[in-house]
């Protein structure tokens, strides 16, 4: 497809704009796109990502309040609306208090991951290490089931069962 502006180079940037229900398409080459100030965004700014995701959440009801916005963190007094407003959380416990609402955002920001698999502080108690291993195995198991890799899923299930047994002791 040719660029609509220079009519010579290959169009590699395709814009679709929907305004008042009318859909218009524009096809440009990189150079003309740049000249027209239509550069492809290299990344979504974090704040934009946050507010887009959180605003896409449950809508407020007629009274202007949703059930979730009533939840107040007992440790820092934060609500989800305050997080929306400030784009940062009030305290570490917010990850538990607002877990349900934060989870989609965490998934989106980290390419689907919801479990830590990096460094573990050395001063963390041994049983917590164990808990982390179990959480990781559980995530791997969920991934395997989603991908329908049942052979791997069976192995992970056995491993998980072994781990949980030692945990119970």
């Amino acid at each position, binding site marked *: 497809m040719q660029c609509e502006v220079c009519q010579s180079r290959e169009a590699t940037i395709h814009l679709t704009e929907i305004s008042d229900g009318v859909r218009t398409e524009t096809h440009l080459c990189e150079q003309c796109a740049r000249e027209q100030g239509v550069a492809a965004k*290299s*990344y979504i700014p974090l704040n934009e990502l946050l507010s887009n995701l959180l605003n896409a959440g449950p809508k407020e009801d007629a009274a202007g309040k949703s059930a979730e916005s009533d939840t107040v963190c007992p440790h820092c007094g934060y609500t989800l609306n305050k997080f929306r407003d400030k784009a940062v*959380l009030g305290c*570490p416990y917010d990850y538990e208090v607002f877990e349900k609402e934060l989870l989609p955002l965490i998934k989106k*920001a980290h*390419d689907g991951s919801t*479990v*830590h698999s990096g460094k573990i502080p050395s001063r*963390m108690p041994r049983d917590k290490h164990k808990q*982390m291993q179990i959480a990781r195995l559980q995530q791997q198991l969920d991934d395997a089931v989603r991908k329908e890799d049942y052979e791997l899923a069976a192995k992970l299930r056995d491993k998980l069962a072994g781990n949980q047994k030692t945990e119970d002791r």
Partner: protein
Amino acid sequence: MKLTEISGNINEWFNGEGPLGDVVVSSRVRLARNLAGYKFLAACTVAEKSEILRKLKDILMGLNLGDEVFYIGVDKTPVLERRFLVERHLISQHHAFGKGPRGAVIARREFFTAMINEEDHLRLQVLKAGCQLRECFEQIDRIDDMIEERIGYAFSPKYGYLTACPTNLGTGVRVSVMLHLPALKMTGHIEKFLNAAKSLGLAVRGLFGEGTDAAGDFYQLSNQITLGVSEKDIVSRFEKAIIPEIVEYEHVARDRLLAKEAGVLDDKISRAMALLKNANLISSQEALFLLSHIRLGLNMHKHQGASTPAIEQLCSLGSDGGDAGGKGRISIATVNRLFMLTLPAHLQLNYGKELDSTHRDALRAKIIRSALNG
């Protein structure tokens, strides 16, 4: 320590040395950490922030980093000095112009900074010249261990290191490289690089981080995903997959310039030299833009053996004030030095007082002229 003790020189990580130094200017790894038992900063009172600051300052000043460390009370530091620290990449814009009690512990050789009370209680960073991400990570990991022996971090078995913003959750690690990509820009391929970076889930920012443009063809490339992947995997993906590819891409663009557009390249370098050697007023943006072409010419001479008339002339320019011999000693370090020392806050701090923009432009032009005319 007075900042003027360091402001007259470039820092170690900007010396143009280091692996793949013709494209990868520097490597940086930073960690975001919060103390267990405290709220995140947005919910802290001033008294709580002061307590966190005091605790972390005491710990950090007591660490053995193999270099002298100094402390800067950022909230009590004059604006010009804060701007200087940002230009130097020692603190972030956010930290320089934030609110409340906050500080920075900095190693004198500038390879290490700890920002206290930035967005998180603690932001550690290690910087090195060229492509040295693994070395940066190993060093910052050791420093992180030393701190953790003395104080507990907010950590969850499920989510890892807990950060004020969920986008840093997990490892809290941000790995970044500063790249100089003038040939990709000149050949019109930079958008492809930006799109490729985006599709790999990476962020691209300008010279001074978030919200800044790519002045001087410098781009900072960093990871965005911090959860579900280990620090070592993030670093190794950068070192083994991402960086070699970009370096190759820039090298191909440089080869192409030389083979097919040597006249254009030659003209850009000639023009840059002519302006830099003769201008009486030069803005910071223009200096970055022109010096970028000079840096490209020198690197192409050194690494590609390029020798167009303008590059030959360029190589016989200037005086470094270092080796004996007078002429013909312009080096990448000289150009990097001009990049950094002609930034607005550097100029003013070294001059000893604040200057309006016309005076800054005149001083900048003078410094560049004297370096290039020898």
